[in-house]
């Protein structure tokens, strides 16, 4: 089959499992950005397992696959956990994250691992690459869709708006940007460090169809993605309002978790909280 479509209950369970995977990966690696992964768990769960993306894990570069590009490359552990659960590679490989010789690099490197579409980690680049894929569909006359997940702080990069302008200019309706709007960047609240608001108006001004959603509500995400697939005359963006560190109370409460893994002890507590979700 193309992709995977699980029930609502299964999706919720899987989201919990993915959080646990990310926690274990980053704790074992003693580094990484777990809180940036946690805010995007439901978004990726719905895309990969809610019947939105069409893909074949055993033919990862199938020409007509839908593309997912993780522009906020620091959420790589989540992408790897999702790809493993989707069957792109064995789950045991997750524990090699960030170790010598492993293709599970700290930030994604294109094509060294099945399902990893782009090299990202220097922020701002994914939407342009996604636009390239979207334009290729038009040139080849095939009909896949391209989804690009951006961080909120990442939208401070000028290249994001270069790409947005061009996507709108070329009227690529098969391109959807998703912003994981968790309201925090590396050094503090986005609104304090470099405000993005009025954010919706910016995307609208650039010619995008804009939809906002609670980025942790699986049903709402399913509905939103279904609605965006019906937009035929312009690119679209889903502004997903999320919580950084979602699922672990003491991580949610402290943005300084951005660039670090949890200690063994913190991870134990986090695990208990995630299991109660």
């Amino acid at each position, binding site marked *: 089959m193309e992709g995977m479509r699980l029930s609502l209950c299964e999706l919720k369970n899987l989201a919990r499992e993915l959080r646990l995977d990310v926690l274990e990966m980053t704790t074992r690696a003693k580094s990484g950005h777990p809180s940036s992964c946690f805010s995007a768990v439901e978004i990726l769960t719905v895309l990969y397992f809610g019947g939105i993306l069409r893909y074949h894990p055993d033919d990862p570069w199938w020409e007509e696959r839908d593309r997912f590009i993780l522009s906020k490359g620091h959420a790589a552990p989540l992408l790897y956990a999702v790809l493993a659960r989707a069957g792109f590679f064995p789950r045991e490989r997750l524990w090699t994250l960030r170790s010598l010789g492993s293709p599970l690099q700290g930030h994604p490197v294109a094509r060294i691992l099945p399902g990893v579409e*782009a090299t990202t980690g220097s922020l701002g*680049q994914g939407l*342009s*690459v996604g636009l390239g894929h979207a334009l290729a569909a038009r040139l080849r006359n095939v009909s896949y869709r391209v989804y690009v997940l951006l961080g909120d702080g990442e939208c401070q990069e000028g290249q994001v708006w270069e790409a947005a*302008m061009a996507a709108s200019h070329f009227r690529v309706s098969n391109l959807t940007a998703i912003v994981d709007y968790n309201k925090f960047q590396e050094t503090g609240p986005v609104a304090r460090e470099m405000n993005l608001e009025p954010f919706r108006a910016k995307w609208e001004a650039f010619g995008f169809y804009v939809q906002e959603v609670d980025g942790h509500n699986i049903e709402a995400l399913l509905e939103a993605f279904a609605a965006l697939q019906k937009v035929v005359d312009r690119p679209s963006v889903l502004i997903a309002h999320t919580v950084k560190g979602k699922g672990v109370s003491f991580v949610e409460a402290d943005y300084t978790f951005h660039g670090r893994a949890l200690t063994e002890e913190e991870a134990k507590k986090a695990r208990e909280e995630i299991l109660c979700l």
Partner: protein
Amino acid sequence: MPVGEKAGLPRGKPLRDAFGEALLRICEQYPQVVVLDGDLGNSTKAETVRKAFPERFLNLGIAESNLVGVAVGLAFCGFIPFVVSFSSFLLCNAYDQIRLGVAMSRANVKLVGSHGGITLGKDGPTQMGIEDLALVGGLPTCTILIPCDAYSMYKALEQAVTHEGPFFIRSSRYAMPRVYEEGSSWEIGKANILREGKDLTIIACGLMVACALDAWAELQKEGIEARVVDLHTLRPLDRAMIVKAARETGAIVVAEEHLLHGGVGSNVARVVAESYPCPMRFVGLEDTYTDSADADELLEAYHLTSSDIVAKCKEVLEAKNVARKGNTISSSIPRS
């Protein structure tokens, strides 16, 4: 006197015109080639494709970062994108996008940096690509080609299409004289000996190849036999050709239309230092930006003429002779 005249080279067309024609031929031959313009197609001559194949020509506007990112996406979908802009704008504005998207991803993207060097002339130093080879040379995986005439430009494009992976090809506004006959051998990573000589070797690239041939003619009149090598590929570097020059001629002058730091000369010097150290001299831009002026005036003012190459050749020959004498003296001292 125009470059190439002393060597009797036929006049050529501006390299960018040759590029435009070659790119069009490549598009006719290879349907998977697409051309991405940074709104300079009329200046780089990539616009030849816009007229012939409008659907395969995309102007991404004045936004180089996005330009390169889009090319990366297209490359991963099986297209062979040629990204064309001024070398300075392309490399300086989109360096990180080239680093991650092209070089690190080993994407099949062909970057063409036009207006390399100082000979774009009157538009001045803001537009000149005098650091381009150092910048692109700093990126692992990227093949770097520096054609010196219309024929080698076509060969460079053709080989960029038939070889998978990232490429940078340097183009220019200058009317470079014809160096190669149709059908000459021109292969990636294989430098060409254009003139044989035993006294020293001039290694050159781009416009400096014709200048080196002029220098060869001047030196010949004085009884100095210079070997002239066109080192058209900066990566992969033809180490064997460089070692051979060092071993067989014992003195090397490298000439390039680029800053001396990080360009062809410093790469050649590393090979010489590691293999067969010999006296070397370098013709290129010292640590400076240049002025706006006529191209030929600039070449003269910044010491990039055949006379400058000749002067360096004489210097290096003297150094070679001193070194040889030194060796003779030291070897004649009895060991205690």
